[in-house]
């Protein structure tokens, strides 16, 4: 085959220009700058992912991303004021709020009360001063050649750096609130690092409302041995949101994640998770609610590198109008990872016959003594159930809302924290209340 140098799209050209233009201002010198350079070269070599890149088959970013918005300016007072409502989904839940506007940490809007064993900082500052924790983990949590991750590494600005010291039980959930702030479309590249040390316990909510911005967010998460981490991601966007979770989970740990997406114009939530120690239990779950021409892509790469771990992958998607849902779930069981128990199940509820749900489950099993499986269903609401409800006087919208709540309820129920669970269900009900009849 001939060696073809593809012509850059306007967005690819703009990304290259953005990097070369911002290179000297981006936080971090030395090793960090070298990391950025490598990542940028990886992007240059491959361009934006497109439909012939297997992992991006259903989300052709090269076509979907027409252009790049200007890199976000640091938020001014007006931008900060615009984010007053941000994070309100969890109002009353009693979380520690950490607020980021236009990708920049805003201490004066954040709750930085001291708590033993909990350290919180800004990624931009940590990169600039060559912080040891960042040096030890950033870019090292999960080896991937994914281009969205490479772009994030090249252009990463700010984000959270959180360390939960060994044995610390953090009672209050930590609520990371990422708000766009800007009234002009802009591009934001955020990188966060959370290290939960041995035996520590914490609940993290990663809450993104990226408004009209193009957002590329990456989170590296290290779950130590015997640690217990509940991770909840909330996503909404009117433009583009690409998020990469890169996690490595130690032995005898418990790691549960839950991704809730509604009003996701164009969303890619990719999860790279490695079980690097034995006897860990994990639930990777999510609910997405789509309408209009929303496009929400959930892609999992679950790597069972060590044996005796249990993982449950469970996703529910509700698709209205002509929306498009994508689920790609790949479970890899490495050689010697015996006694792995992994089960993946994804279900789509199609509210119209114009909506589309693409499902691509994959199992790559290199060990022989394992229990692994996957299943997928897609279907409409049961007309018999709907008639039963309506025959009791319940209106059609209300009957459908009850049945949709029932459909997602089983998965939402798995959120351990009661306040967050209720808040997510309420957000789903609010979304349902906006259905048009």
């Amino acid at each position, binding site marked *: 085959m001939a060696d073809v140098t593809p012509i850059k799209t306007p967005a690819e050209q703009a990304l290259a220009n953005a990097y070369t233009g911002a290179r000297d201002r981006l936080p971090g010198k030395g090793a960090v700058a070298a990391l950025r350079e490598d990542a940028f070269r990886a992007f240059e070599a491959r361009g934006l992912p497109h439909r012939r890149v297997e992992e991006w088959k259903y989300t052709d970013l090269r076509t979907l991303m027409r252009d790049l918005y200007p890199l976000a300016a640091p938020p001014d007072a007006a931008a900060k004021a615009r984010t007053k409502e941000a994070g309100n989904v969890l109002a009353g839940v009693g979380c520690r709020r950490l607020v980021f506007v236009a990708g920049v940490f805003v201490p004066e809007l954040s709750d930085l009360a001291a708590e033993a064993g909990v350290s919180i900082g800004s990624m931009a500052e940590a990169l600039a001063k060559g912080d040891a924790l960042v040096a030890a983990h950033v870019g090292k949590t999960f080896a991937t050649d994914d281009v969205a991750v490479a772009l994030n590494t090249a252009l990463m600005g700010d984000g959270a750096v959180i360390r939960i010291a060994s044995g610390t039980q953090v009672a209050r959930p930590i609520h990371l609130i990422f708000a766009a702030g800007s009234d002009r479309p802009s591009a934001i590249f955020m990188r966060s690092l959370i290290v939960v040390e041995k035996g520590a316990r914490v609940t993290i909510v990663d809450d993104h409302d990226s408004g009209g911005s193009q957002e590329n967010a990456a989170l590296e998460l290290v779950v130590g041995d015997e640690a217990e981490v509940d991770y909840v991601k909330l996503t909404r966007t009117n433009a583009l949101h690409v998020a990469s979770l890169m996690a490595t989970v130690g032995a005898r740990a418990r790691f549960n994640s839950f991704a809730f997406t509604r009003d996701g114009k164009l969303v890619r939530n990719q999860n790279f998770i490695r079980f690097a120690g034995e006897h860990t239990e994990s639930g990777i779950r999510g609910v997405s609610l789509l309408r209009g021409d929303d496009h929400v892509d959930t892609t999992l790469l679950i790597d069972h590198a060590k044996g005796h771990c249990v993982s449950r992958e469970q996703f529910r998607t509700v698709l209205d109008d002509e929306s498009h849902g994508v689920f790609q779930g790949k479970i890899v069981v490495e050689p010697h990872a015996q006694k792995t128990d992994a089960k993946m199940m994804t279900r789509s509820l199609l509210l119209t016959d114009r909506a589309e749900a693409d499902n691509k489950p994959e199992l790559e099993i290199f060990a022989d003594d394992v229990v692994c499986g996957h299943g997928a269903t897609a279907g409409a609401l049961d*007309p018999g*159930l709907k008639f*039963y*409800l309506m*025959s*009791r*006087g319940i209106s*059609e919208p209300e009957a459908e809302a009850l049945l949709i709540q*029932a459909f997602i309820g089983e998965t939402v129920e798995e959120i351990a924290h009661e306040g967050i669970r209720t808040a997510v269900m309420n957000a789903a009900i609010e979304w349902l209340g906006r259905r048009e009849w």
Partner: protein
Amino acid sequence: MSLLEIKNLHAEVEGKKILNGLTLTIEKGQVAAIMGPNGSGKSTLAYVLAGKPGYEVTEGEVLLDGENILDMGADERAAKGVFLAFQYPVEVPGVATMTFLRTALNAQRKTRSEGELSTPEFMKLVRETAGQLGIGQDMLRRAVNVGFSGGEKKRNEIMQMAILQPRLAVLDETDSGLDIDALKIVADGVNRLRSPERSMIVITHYQRLLNYIVPDVVHVLAKGRVVKSGGKELALALEAEGYAQYVGEAA
């Protein structure tokens, strides 16, 4: 005035003609039994009255209090007082029984411009009604009909009827699947609801139920139309003779 007038009703499902010129009048306060062989169209009539999608009326009319209900949705008919106790009540996983009852009752009250019931009022109503029908708290805590036995589902239908207080109740083989004690409990529940303002259509295959719920009139349905009407003694005659004479004669 008659509560319900069905005139020359023709209906089909998936292109199959099932009701063939059915005419039937139910008076206010009347309990009418409908009997007839398997496949004669009894459940179809019940579904057409309740407004199940897919049941296409090609001719005729159904008047409730003189008002044509055929263009109304199932929810609207329910608010007008039509209630169907299903022959096969469905399980609704994930929808809690209490949420279901409350949503239904309040939706009907709202459509009729009555206020919503307060939580204590509602709880009291459900507790009392459930108690009378031998429905325990554990069943009320579950999702609608999920994991209920056949008999429990039937009792749940009657509980819903007692809570929703319809003006026209259609009971489709509510007796099937009930043991003798449950049959008495259910019949008592139905009899408690008999009133000069409320009419009932009781579909059954067995005379036994009619010993407990004594009908004012018995209609025989065959091949999608009423072929014979009479008093409660008609049910006894059918028990003795079967449907042979009706099945042969209908066109």
